[in-house]
């Protein structure tokens, strides 16, 4: 039986007792992602503060892999530095593309912590999307939030510099 390689106890734990679940206020951006092959859905919100992800909250429906993945995501990125969180997301994608290669999982162990338990999922092409859905949502939401922040700071800057030089490029 190969099932245990996919459904590691850590994954089932996160599925049964998800961390950080539920949509919270305040938030900068909310995104909704679906997996059109199986109908799984996630709604995810991010609140950025300076260089940090102040809060990431989510609500979703789907299989154990997709739900556990969202819980692990919360554990890994909530309250973390944005750059670091996005790098963790990239590492998770690398793990999902590893086709079960154990050396990849070993290399990413420090960065991914509990999420390294998803290594078994990478052997099942049809389940990789389930595991990645919340991470794609995070990447999307963070990018939108960063863009909004940038827009906002540009506006503030423009308003502050009411001199003839207003509107020039960021120094």
């Amino acid at each position, binding site marked *: 039986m*190969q*099932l245990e390689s996919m*459904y590691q106890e850590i994954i089932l734990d996160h599925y049964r007792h998800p961390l950080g679940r539920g949509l919270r206020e305040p938030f900068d951006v909310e995104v909704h992602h679906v997996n059109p092959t*199986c*109908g799984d859905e996630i709604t995810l919100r991010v609140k950025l503060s300076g260089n940090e992800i102040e809060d990431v909250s989510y609500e979703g*429906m789907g*299989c*154990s892999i997709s739900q556990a993945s969202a819980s692990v995501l919360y554990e890994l990125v909530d309250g973390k530095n944005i750059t670091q969180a996005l790098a963790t997301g990239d590492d998770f994608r690398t793990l999902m593309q590893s086709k079960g290669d154990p050396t990849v999982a070993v290399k990413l162990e420090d960065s991914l912590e509990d999420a390294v338990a998803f290594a078994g999922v990478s052997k099942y092409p049809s389940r990789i999307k*389930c595991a990645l859905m919340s991470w794609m949502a995070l990447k999307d939401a963070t990018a939108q939030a960063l863009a909004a922040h940038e827009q906002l700071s540009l506006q503030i800057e423009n308003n502050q510099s009411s001199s003839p030089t207003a509107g020039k490029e960021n120094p």
Partner: protein
Amino acid sequence: MSLPLDTAQLLDTAQLLDTELICKDFPILSRTVRDGRRLVYLDSGATSHKPRQVLDAERDFYENHNAAVHRGAHQLAEEATDLYEAARRTVAAFIGAAENEVVFTKNSTEGVNLLAYAISNSATAGPEAARFVIGPGDEIVVTEMEHHANLLPWQQLCIRTGATLRWLTLTDDGRLDLESLNDVINERTKLVALVHQSNILGTVNPIREISDGANEVGALVMLDAAQSVPHTAVDVVALDVDFLVFSGHKMLGPTGIGIFWGRYELLEALPPFLTGGSMIEVVHIDRSTFAPPPAKFEAGVPMAAQAVGLAAACDYLSDLGMDRVAEHEHALTELALVGLQQIPGVHIVGPPDTVERGGAVSFTVEGIHPHDVGQVLDDLGIAVRVGHHCAWPVVRRFGVPATTRATFYIYNGSEDVQALLDGVREAQRFFGVPEATEPNVATVTAGVGA
């Protein structure tokens, strides 16, 4: 766990097909999956496997007769054309149609699109096609149980033309709610497009009742027969419909071949969908006239080897006898429905009995997402489909995110149903769902596929 006595008896008397013999014709069924397990293929509703006879027919075409049909002045071209047209006759006979009413397409989806786009094209196709023109104020009727292939083409046609899309709703046990029939199908209705047998619920719809209603108001009827032609005897005349589509790959045939059937006088008046070579009569640089049906709807070099393969599939099914095929599947479906409903926490999505019902059995297991059920079954070598089955409005109607679906065909026997039932219990054990706490479950399932 063993099959309940009454259903086991039922199987003894009703299972007519010799599945052991049939399986020998299907090379793929002798392979193993997931570390040496016997393949229990319960996903024929998505696509069926192909017997050697079909594979041989295709191979023979390519090895001995290959040429572009309806072109060329050489012997191979003649032979290829003869085989292609003979295939058309075989398929026509299989559904009780005239051969010049049978159009080869890529699959059912293309067949539905052919009709939808031909209707679009009728707006500029002259007086002959005027009867097909639709616009604001006209209505197209579908049902809530359509899969995407028989929904999106009509949805999009309505968006293009300004016509209104209406639909028949479903009852809680997965049947069409016919109380609203006379309201939904009315004098504004131009076309009723509906599924013969639902790919997700298994429901067989009362086509005659609906086509009678449509005839009364002068509406055309298109039947999506992708899930019925492979499994039961279908006669286009008896159904009294105007158009019908199905796919080859779900009925032992190759992929890339399907059928669009229409009554000849309608095909004559209907403008083409795809244009190009083969479908023409006379071509000038700025205008053309078209060949009569079915050629009018077959632009380009057609898929001849696949047509020949589909004809071989029809022959294979005819040799078994479509009534026996239907009875065989009926018995397996009954076993599955009874067996699944005996497992606590399992709910059938669709009619819970075998009355007017085909062999697509969708279900949910409390506390386990269908994807996870499917994963456990896959680990045991059992191939099922999970998800929304390209029929998203249906799962939404029943308030479930998705279902697990088993579908049966001629190569499935009662041992496959047993494997499914054991597999569902194993999923409950694996995920620790409390309903499945019978002490003997683990020992029984340990023997599956061993």
